[in-house]
């Protein structure tokens, strides 16, 4: 039951003809040359499907970029142009707050003031703290649900499960009132707290992975004198690093994209997060016509940090997730 983290795969795997992954425990090591499967009709079809899906996935992003680089005020004149209409970086200047009010309005923007870097910092702070809390507390709870036996466990788990089903519309206002009563409005804690301690999803998600880990692993650890804390910290967490990283990333994205709650409790300038600031591009524009160029530019800019984060961590996920011999 050796828990071995697989070394990075050879680069060949990244090519279309690479061997199917799937843990790919290759007993022969790297000495034996990998058989490259012939490009059968099925494989060609599969690749076509995958490439097709990727194209469908990417096109809207291209369209965002194309729109962001257009001059918002003339955008509607050439709806079918695949290239930006009267290309300009004006929309990005608006996002970074570099354009004057007049410039912004001439291009269909609102001209409201924006301190981009401040909002970015707030977003990073808020999303990081929320994610840290959710992952740590979520993993702890998931462990207690999955690998420990205690009275009321199933009942509590079922209750937690129902939390997943409570329509957010149901809880947000009381939570708002609570924040007000605690005097926390327009502070970081107000934005963070309701998400910090628990999100049913994290517990549910990790518990499912913890369940899949063979109990022999931890029993062995127990024999070595580890208590639950030790087992959790030294065995379970390292073994589940892949799911945990995945979860962390997903929760980070969720926290990053959260809009209404921070708008509610943290719209003041000094704690305003990026999404709230970006609302400016949405509904502050004249006559309900979104400043499409500005909005798309803002969206790209707001998504960029998360995209980068993903680009960095996804490799880590790939490399850490390939266990062999767990079962």
């Amino acid at each position, binding site marked *: 039951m050796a828990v071995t983290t697989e070394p990075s795969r050879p680069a060949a795997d990244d090519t279309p003809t690479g061997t199917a992954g799937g*843990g790919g*425990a290759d007993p022969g090591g790297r000495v034996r040359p990998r058989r490259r499967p012939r490009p059968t009709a099925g494989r060609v079809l599969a690749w076509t499907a*995958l490439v097709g899906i990727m194209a469908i996935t990417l096109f809207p992003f291209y369209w965002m970029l194309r729109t962001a680089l257009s001059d918002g005020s003339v955008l509607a004149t050439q709806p079918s142009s695949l290239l930006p209409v009267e290309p300009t970086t004006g929309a990005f200047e608006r996002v970074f707050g570099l354009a004057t009010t007049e410039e912004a309005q001439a291009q269909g923007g609102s001209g409201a003031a924006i301190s981009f870097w401040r909002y970015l910092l707030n977003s990073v702070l808020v999303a990081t703290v929320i994610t840290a809390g959710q992952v740590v507390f979520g993993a702890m709870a998931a462990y207690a649900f999955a690998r420990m*036996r205690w009275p009321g466990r199933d009942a509590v788990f079922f209750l937690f499960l129902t939390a*997943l089903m409570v329509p957010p*519309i149901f*809880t947000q206002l009381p939570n708002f009132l609570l924040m007000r009563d605690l005097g926390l409005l327009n502070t970081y804690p107000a934005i963070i707290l309701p998400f910090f301690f*628990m999100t049913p999803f994290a517990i549910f998600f990790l518990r499912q992975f913890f369940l899949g880990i063979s109990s*022999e692993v931890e029993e062995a650890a127990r024999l070595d004198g580890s208590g639950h804390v030790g087992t959790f910290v030294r065995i379970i967490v390292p073994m589940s690093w892949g799911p945990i990283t995945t979860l962390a990333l*997903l929760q980070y994205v969720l926290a990053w994209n959260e809009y209404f709650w921070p708008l509610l409790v943290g719209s003041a300038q000094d704690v305003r997060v990026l999404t709230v600031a970006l609302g400016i591009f949405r509904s502050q524009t004249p006559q309900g016509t979104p400043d499409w160029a500005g909005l798309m530019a803002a969206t790209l800019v707001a998504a960029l940090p998360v995209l980068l984060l993903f680009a960095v961590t996804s490799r880590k996920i790939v490399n850490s997730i390939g266990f062999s011999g767990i079962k």
Partner: protein
Amino acid sequence: MSSTAPSGPALPQSPAGDGPVPVPARPPGRGGGRGAQSDGARARQRRENLVAAGFIAPSLLGFGVFYFWPTLRGLYFSLTDFDFFSAPAFVGLANYQRLLEDPTFWNAMRVTLLYVAINIGVQTVLALAIAVLMHRLTQSTFVRSVVVMPYLVANVVVALVFFWMLDAQIGIVNQALAGVGLDPVAFFGDEAWVIPTIALVNVWRHMGYTALLLFAGLQMIPGHLYEAARTDGASEWRMFWSITLPLLRPVLAVVLVITMIGSFQVFDTVAVTAAGGPADASRVLQYYIFDLAFQRLDYGYASAVSVVLLLILMAVAVVQLRLTRANESDLG
């Protein structure tokens, strides 16, 4: 539903282990050591309970304060005529009675179910396809990054981008349709199209994310199973049905429960695009609740509808978990 002593069906993979009584050399068939508990075992159990309490405490705090208590209040308000600004008067089940006779509610129910059916159906199939394609074809981080990209963009923004791209008159999709000689489709303006459109927009955003979750599950499937099957000359198709799907089932169940619950709560996309229209064709439950509570300050009634939504979701979760038996190892 649970007790301290091991109860319920002892399933081969009971993950909780048989904690209380560690037996040095565990025989393969578990279940030994379930005899009378010694004082030492009881003490150990007490210690274990304490440790468990410690593990669970932060989550319990968050749950109690930010989920449980507000929900209880919501339940209470569903029995009142609360309108936010005056003291709530108890009205018994009047709100629930009204609900039975409210055609808009039943329409919202129908619309929501249609949405969920399309959204979950298409999304699950696509996500599974993507996950398996990635799993069997390539480990490429690039591919994975691409498919999950839509999820990195906020809901509201995704809705807006598609609203823009699918515009009946100047959207690029209709421009393309016109280019090949087709009539424009009013994706968000046509009563027949609006729900399928919104459902597919959300499929676009979530399929990669769902695929990633499934992919993580696929990674847990030992690769040697595939190697062995391949040696036996099994086709990819056959391996999918005999290896991938059965072993993925617990993860698939979790993912289904979560995506379906999320699907029932669709709101942002509707609010940003069709806003319930045309003629109630996109008035999903959550949007109806929002409308009642927020636009019409009818909080008591909105709470009643929320409670119904909550009950539906709980039923969905229970049924699904039973059907897929993902929880057989503990909730049974």
